[in-house]
């Protein structure tokens, strides 16, 4: 058996809010993500989805539990790519320089960093915009660039926190396709957080539902790809998933 890309055992996170009370966001979460898997994490707002990703990147320390990302403690091993919901491009860097950022800070020579960044921009179909300033891009293009930067940062593991949540339907679909195509080609491990059930079903090999700080439901998606959201099988799976979530204990 190959080693898991992400391994989580009994993970808990407790915050102290402004009133000084302890708030448990995650309570003893168990989850294993296999290499190359496309995992979608569903759950209501405030259900701990974002916290889970922050723990995986090492931005926030866990209160307790065992956590391994790519075989090491979060933030200790190779960097993982992270895409945030809002525009996170550095506004003082042009698009290409944003994508070279994770490479240059790792000490990769400028020429090589540029070549690799161009390759990433090609993957997200943003080749023509490398000299644009972030503010000149549409929201969809900004997220494409952010995905390219995340791919440059960590080729093996990609974490996305509702990356298409702020986009219109058409742009969202175009980006979903881009992401699927990249996954098909590069087979990196993806953890994709969303509150959109249809989106999770369209993208994921597996869907886990977070609720009350734990996984309350898990569903392996066996629909063939490319998935057609208008097909009867898709609709059927969607209805079943809705029922699972609806019946899931909170």
């Amino acid at each position, binding site marked *: 058996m190959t080693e898991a890309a992400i391994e989580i055992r009994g993970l808990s996170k407790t915050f102290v809010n402004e009133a000084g009370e302890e708030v448990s966001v995650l309570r003893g979460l168990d989850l294993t993500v296999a290499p190359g898997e496309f995992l979608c994490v569903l759950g209501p707002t405030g259900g701990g989805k974002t916290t889970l990703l922050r723990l995986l990147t090492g931005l926030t320390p866990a209160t307790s539990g065992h956590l391994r990302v790519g075989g090491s403690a979060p933030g200790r091993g190779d960097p993982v790519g*992270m895409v*945030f919901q809002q525009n996170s491009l*550095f506004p003082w860097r042009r698009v290409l320089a944003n994508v070279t950022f994770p490479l240059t800070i790792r000490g990769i020579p400028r020429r090589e960093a540029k070549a690799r960044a161009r390759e990433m921009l090609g993957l997200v179909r943003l080749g023509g915009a490398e000299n644009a300033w972030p503010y000149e891009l549409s929201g969809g293009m900004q997220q494409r660039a952010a995905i390219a930067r995340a791919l440059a940062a960590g080729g093996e593991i990609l974490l996305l926190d509702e990356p298409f949540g702020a986009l219109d339907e058409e742009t969202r679909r175009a980006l979903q396709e881009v992401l699927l195509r990249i996954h098909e080609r590069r087979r990196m491990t993806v953890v994709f957080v969303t509150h959109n059930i249809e989106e999770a079903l369209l993208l994921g090999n597996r869907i886990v539902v977070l609720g009350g700080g734990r996984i309350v439901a898990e569903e392996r998606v066996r629909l063939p790809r490319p998935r057609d959201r208008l097909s009867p099988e898709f609709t059927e799976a969607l209805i079943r998933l809705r029922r699972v979530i609806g019946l899931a204990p909170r």
Partner: protein
Amino acid sequence: MSGSGTTRTSTVRGVARKFVLGALPPLLVLLAWVHFGSRSAVIPSIPEVARVLAHPFAEPDLDSLSLGTSTLVSLLRVLIGFGLAAATAVPLGILVGRVRIVREIFSPIVEMARPICPVAWLPLLIVIFGRMSVGTLLHGEASWRHELTSQLGVAMIVVIWWGAFFPIFVNTVHGVTHVKTLYQEVAKTCGASRGLILLHVVLPAALPSIVAGLRIGMGTGWMVIVAAEFFPGTRSGLAYMITTADEVGRHEYVFACILVIGLLGVLLNAVLGRLEDRVGRWQARER
């Protein structure tokens, strides 16, 4: 840019409008000057002032260096004081903005020192530094250069430093402390260390604010130098020339000095303003 005909015309019109309207007040001032200059003993005529300005390095029959040399002395004092202020305020501002314990140590003293008018220190500084100048520090020979450097008194430079320091410092602290957390977190997920985050995220993000501080600091320095040169004990500089010329009723020199002070102020501000626009280009639509 593919400006269509209409937009180009309107831009031309806009520029013309700006110049014509902006030229009105100076024109009025000039007219008033012509009017009063011819019938007043205090206000010199335009040709008299123009003659002084046309020959900046002519020896004036005053107890003062020439207008050109006086300008050079004032300018050098400001540039040296400003340079020292920038070299100290920016690093200290970054340190105070980034390290909590440093901020806690320095905040009270900065808040106490900031409202003190820099010129208030001058008498004390003259006592402390005496005739010490850039010239005496360099042990220059008795060349014209030495004559110039001997005018760059340390006391005066310290006063400029004091005046320019705080705007630069305050703006640096502000810039460094107001970098979006998101950008720093992005850098962290990319594996950047604290030092790399400072270099590649905090500094570029804070740069427009720092340069704005430099521009304001330069303006303050230029104001402070004029005030400081009015003090007794000063032997040179534009404001010193104003005092000596005024004592003997040579108001064409007074006017010429005031014009030079104004023009240089505008020039210094414009240079740093351009730099500010350059480093703040990416902020164009951020606001």
